[in-house]
């Protein structure tokens, strides 16, 4: 314990020199924290937001042209494809949605959807008697989940009206299903398609052209990539169909590139500055301890053990290291608060732009102190091994 109390006295009685050493370490740690904070607060949030938004994974063909089963199979077989749902050939798959009591009427766009559709999130896919609506559509008709609704469709060329009573099974947030869009079962979408093209729907008591004459065809497809990293390669792969491909590849590619750059920056910058912090501590110990070699040799001659000398050095190193970490964390909070006031960046971020969780800060501080302690132990070994006989000689 005498080594620890000596070390504490050293820390207490040399405040200016030790504060300078702490500031030197903090000066190395602060840029690491700010870089990591910007990555976690700005880049990770942006990438996280994209990852949480299935629309970022959506890809489609710009032109509506006949899409056969063979082409659909080829699309499904492409690497990085998570979900493919063909869209009917009828260009505008629209209908009118109203409340079951007959009140309200809203023009809606229908999207065929089945199991695995990323827009469903954790909700079950729509069946022939259910639909899934977006917040906006549900809000306009003051609908809640479980309510009955009526979906109707009429065309100028037919006197009949296609009308079906359904249940609103789920309401999805506007981020997933914006505007007046409904997710419907593919079979229901096909029925509305057939009705629009003038075919009879015997099951619904609607007369028309012979259904046997109908040749099912698709004009486009809802395609979703498996993850953000697959979006750009998938867009490239879909180019072989020569229809023009739409997708949010620019934003995704920018976010991913920013993420990679930020990670590299934190690693390289952090590594260099961590080495700087270590060198700073080493030089502090060198400057502070080497003039004490003879003191420590006498200390050993007086009966101190090598462990006492090591404890002395370790206490000083950890004291300076802790001080440096505390100063760096305090300065980080100040810098983070300042960065959050920078309007252009703050506008782009949905939260603090420079942010590290307390757990991350604690982990970083603990890792820093462990590294500094290992360094201090290596230094302490040199002094702990001093021969007590050295005290009797002036040359050390």
């Amino acid at each position, binding site marked *: 314990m005498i080594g620890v109390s000596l070390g504490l006295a050293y820390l*207490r009685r040399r405040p200016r020199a030790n504060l300078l050493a702490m500031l030197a370490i903090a000066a190395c740690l602060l840029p690491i924290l700010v870089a990591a904070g910007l990555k976690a607060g700005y880049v990770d949030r942006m990438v996280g937001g994209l990852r949480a938004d299935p629309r970022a994974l959506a890809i489609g063909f710009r032109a509506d042209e006949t899409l056969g089963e063979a082409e659909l199979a080829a699309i499904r077989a492409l690497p990085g494809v998570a979900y493919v749902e063909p869209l009917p050939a009828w260009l505008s798959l629209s209908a009118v949605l109203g409340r079951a009591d007959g009140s309200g009427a809203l023009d809606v766009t229908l999207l065929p959807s089945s199991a695995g559709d990323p827009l469903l999130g954790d909700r079950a896919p729509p069946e022939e008697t259910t639909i899934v609506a977006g917040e906006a559509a549900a809000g306009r008709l003051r609908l809640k989940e479980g309510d009955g609704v009526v979906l109707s469709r009429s065309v100028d060329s037919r006197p009949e009206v296609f009308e079906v009573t359904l249940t609103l099974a789920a309401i999805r947030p506007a981020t997933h299903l914006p505007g007046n869009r409904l997710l419907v079962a593919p079979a229901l979408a096909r029925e509305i398609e057939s009705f629009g093209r003038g075919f009879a729907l015997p099951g619904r008591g609607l007369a028309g052209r012979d259904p046997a004459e109908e040749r099912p065809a698709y004009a486009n497809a809802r395609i979703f990539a498996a993850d953000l990293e697959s979006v750009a390669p998938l867009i490239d792969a879909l180019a072989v169909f020569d229809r023009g491909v739409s997708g949010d590849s620019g934003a995704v590619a920018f976010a991913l590139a920013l993420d990679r750059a930020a990670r590299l920056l934190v690693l390289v910058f952090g590594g260099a500055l961590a080495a700087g912090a270590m060198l700073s501590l080493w030089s502090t110990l060198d400057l502070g301890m080497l003039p004490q070699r*003879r003191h420590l040799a006498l200390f050993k*001659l007086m*009966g*101190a*053990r090598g462990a006492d000398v090591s404890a002395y050095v370790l206490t000083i190193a950890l004291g300076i290291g802790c001080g440096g970490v505390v100063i760096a964390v305090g300065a980080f909070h100040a810098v983070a608060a300042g960065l959050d006031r920078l309007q252009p960046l703050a506008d782009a971020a949905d939260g603090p732009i420079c942010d590290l969780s307390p757990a991350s800060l604690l982990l970083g501080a603990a890792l820093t102190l462990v590294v500094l302690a290992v360094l201090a132990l290596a230094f302490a070994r040199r002094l702990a091994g001093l021969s007590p*006989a050295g005290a*009797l*000689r*002036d040359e050390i």
Partner: protein
Amino acid sequence: MAEIEIRDLAIALTDGSRRFEVKIPAFRLGAGERIAILGETGSGKTTALDVLALASPPTAADRFVLRADGTSIDLAAAGGRRDFARLRARHFGYVLQTSPHFPFLTLTENAALAQRLSGRVEPRRVARLLRETGIDFPARTPVTALSIGQRQRLAVVRALAHAPDFLLCDEPTGALDPATADRLMTVMLAAAGERAGVLVVSHDAALVRRHGFAIWRMERESGSTSVLRPESESGREVQP
């Protein structure tokens, strides 16, 4: 009462192809005894003190014994550095030519260091020794405020604060003017009292003779061997 006894002890040092040997045929330091080792620079005085101070082990010894507290410890057979460290803390005090003090400790904290290492913490003894050696400063005075002579007296206080059985001094007055050196020696011997055996390595024969030390001489027997003998057996009279 404590004593160190040596018979036919040898310390061999090698430096590349060169070999240097110090021999101590017979030596004894008991309670209250005062012995001074004199010799030319480079004759091996400090090497002998290394071993007598338990700072390094001898190369060979027929007998190297420490008797204290009613027990006898065979130092030639005693093992490792840890044993030596414990014995040094308990039984020895050291004063060097320029005794370093930790600059960040106060005068009193430096004085009490050996007490803490030996486990014999006794603040009143430290205060008394400081008073007796004429270091009349507030307890929290930094050591950097002391003169060289005062620092040497503080080193004496530190060396004797834990009531050691032996006080080993390596040219303790070497950096002082004659008057200050004389005063330090007087103060040191008074503080050591009759309990501690005092061994001094010195170049100042007159000083140690004046203070009643028995003179031992480190003499070169051949180019590479020195032998420590009482002055009466050395064949050379030390000039006062």
